[in-house]
């Protein structure tokens, strides 16, 4: 049944009803919100809850600009880089692909949070998985700012270039190895199909609007995963004393394993982790190296964000191969460093 035009509510009537509903709703809100706020403030004045909240907000505030920058780069790629053009730029042979992929970390230098939306978009645009994952894993380590902070933090180590060089070298080696494993295990599968790229935008919508819009979409998706990872990371920092993880490292290999566990739980920014690693003066070169190599590749919040960016089978391979290689190769490099010293 259609409503006769005379029976329809006018705009003024709708506004009056909305104001009435708002006032009625405001009364219980006025009573409930301060009560809830007091209870919450009481809860977060408890020492452990405060540490949890403080670390959670700190990780989110620190990481979200980088995730957002990554999302904007992702939006730029989506709108300005046609899939066919990207396909033409991709080397045909596997060795060339694996050689070029780490260089992307220098061409597109983003940290471990920002690289996730970029890689996600590149995969959708048709970048081969092995190339994308090599960039994902090695990019944050080869970031010039990260390498500079490593040089600064380990300037007292002799020779001064040992730790930055070992970190960059292992980062590339592990990433390329994961790329090879991926290629070997996925080459018989059908190739990932690239999204059909928009070539033009109608109705006068500018490219800028589309870039920001895609950035917002990516931010919403990855921001949720970042939040999940940060909740777990903050819980770990509030409930697992750092000293327990440090105390694990009484023997050389256990020290590396302990430092890797610490890197996984702490979720430090790759630009800051070198200073934290340098402060563990009682730890071996190998264990600090393991901390510095694993942190930018795998931690709680990154695993949560990888869930949104990588196919599950790829994530499983990354989770299995990266920690084992990090442990073994760090010990090997640490041993060589000891012999040379």
């Amino acid at each position: 049944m259609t409503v006769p035009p005379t029976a329809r509510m006018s705009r003024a009537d709708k506004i009056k009803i909305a104001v009435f509903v708002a006032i009625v709703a405001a009364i219980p809100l006025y009573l409930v919100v301060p009560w809830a706020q007091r209870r919450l403030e009481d809860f977060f004045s408890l020492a452990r809850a405060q540490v949890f909240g403080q670390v959670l907000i700190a990780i989110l505030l620190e990481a979200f600009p980088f995730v957002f920058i990554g999302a904007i780069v992702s939006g730029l790629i989506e709108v300005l880089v046609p899939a066919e053009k990207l396909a033409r730029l991709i080397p045909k042979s596997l060795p060339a692909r694996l050689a070029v992929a780490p260089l992307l970390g220098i061409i597109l230098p983003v940290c471990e949070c920002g690289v996730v939306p970029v890689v996600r978009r590149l995969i959708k645009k048709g970048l081969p998985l092995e190339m994308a994952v090599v960039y994902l894993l090695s990019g944050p380590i080869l970031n010039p700012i990260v390498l500079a902070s490593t040089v600064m933090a380990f300037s007292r180590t002799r020779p001064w270039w040992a730790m930055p060089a070992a970190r960059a070298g292992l980062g590339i080696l592990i990433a390329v190895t994961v790329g090879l494993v991926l290629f070997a295990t996925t080459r018989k599968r059908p190739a990932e199909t690239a999204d059909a790229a928009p070539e033009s935008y109608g109705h006068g919508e500018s490219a800028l609007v589309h870039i920001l819009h895609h950035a917002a979409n990516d931010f919403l998706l990855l921001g949720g995963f970042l939040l999940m990872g940060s909740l777990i990371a903050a819980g770990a920092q509030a409930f697992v004393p750092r000293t327990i993880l440090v105390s694990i490292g009484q023997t050389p290999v256990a020290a590396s394993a302990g430092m890797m566990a610490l890197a996984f739980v702490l979720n430090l920014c790759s630009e800051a982790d070198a200073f934290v690693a340098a402060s563990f003066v009682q730890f071996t070169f190998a264990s600090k190296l393991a901390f510095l190599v694993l942190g930018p590749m795998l931690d709680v919040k990154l695993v949560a964000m990888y869930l949104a960016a990588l196919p599950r089978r790829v994530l499983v391979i990354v989770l299995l191969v990266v920690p084992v290689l990090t442990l073994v190769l760090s010990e090997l490099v640490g041993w060589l460093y000891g012999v040379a010293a």
Partner: protein
Amino acid sequence: MTATKHAPRLTWWELWPMLGWGLFVAYIYAKGRMTLFLRPLYGHLAMGAAAVLLLCFVCGWFVRRRSLKREAEGEPVHEGHACGEAPSAWRYVWSLAFLVPIIIGLALPERGLNALAALQRGAGDPAMAAELAAQQQLAEAREEQGYGWTTVLGVAQRLTMPEAQKVGAIGFVVRNEKAPADQFLLVRFQIVCCAADASPMAVPVKWAEAHTLENNQWVKVFGRTDPKAKALIADKVEPTRQPANPYM
């Protein structure tokens, strides 16, 4: 033929997290609380990103309005994520999850990391004491002579000097139950990026009235260093307010 594609229309459930998070960060920044979580430089960066996020909200709202207008004119449009990643049933839960950090952030007390965090991160632990030497290179403490206000790290450096020196230091109190009643730790956290990487710089302080102090209380300590005891011998301890930036 070239494909024409409109930006997908976001729902209000997807738009509000951008508005909410952007306003939350702007509120934290405007209240001067950013330094409780981040190093100042990163605080400015977060505020800049929040401003762009708010711009994205405006952009999403604009696209939504245009899309609704086109729909009213009978043109087919699609709603939701561009790439169809998140199942639509989860859209609302996903969106509500952004409320969690906002509520927690607003409920947190206005103070930096506390005594529990200091102890969990090794303050006063002999095994962690060696960190002091390595951390010194990061210090940005400006020291003055005599009772000039030094950071805790400044005092820690003086503990390694051969002769006793007069110092004044500011930090918060951490009382370890195992420590003697006339002793407490004067602590200040040092951060590189954010509170997640904060390391406690702790100096043992000997003061007869130490038992009257409470954990997390900010104090000014006047005294002299005792290199033999590796402690600061306090002549006077005064309560003070938490500095605007509680970290070093």
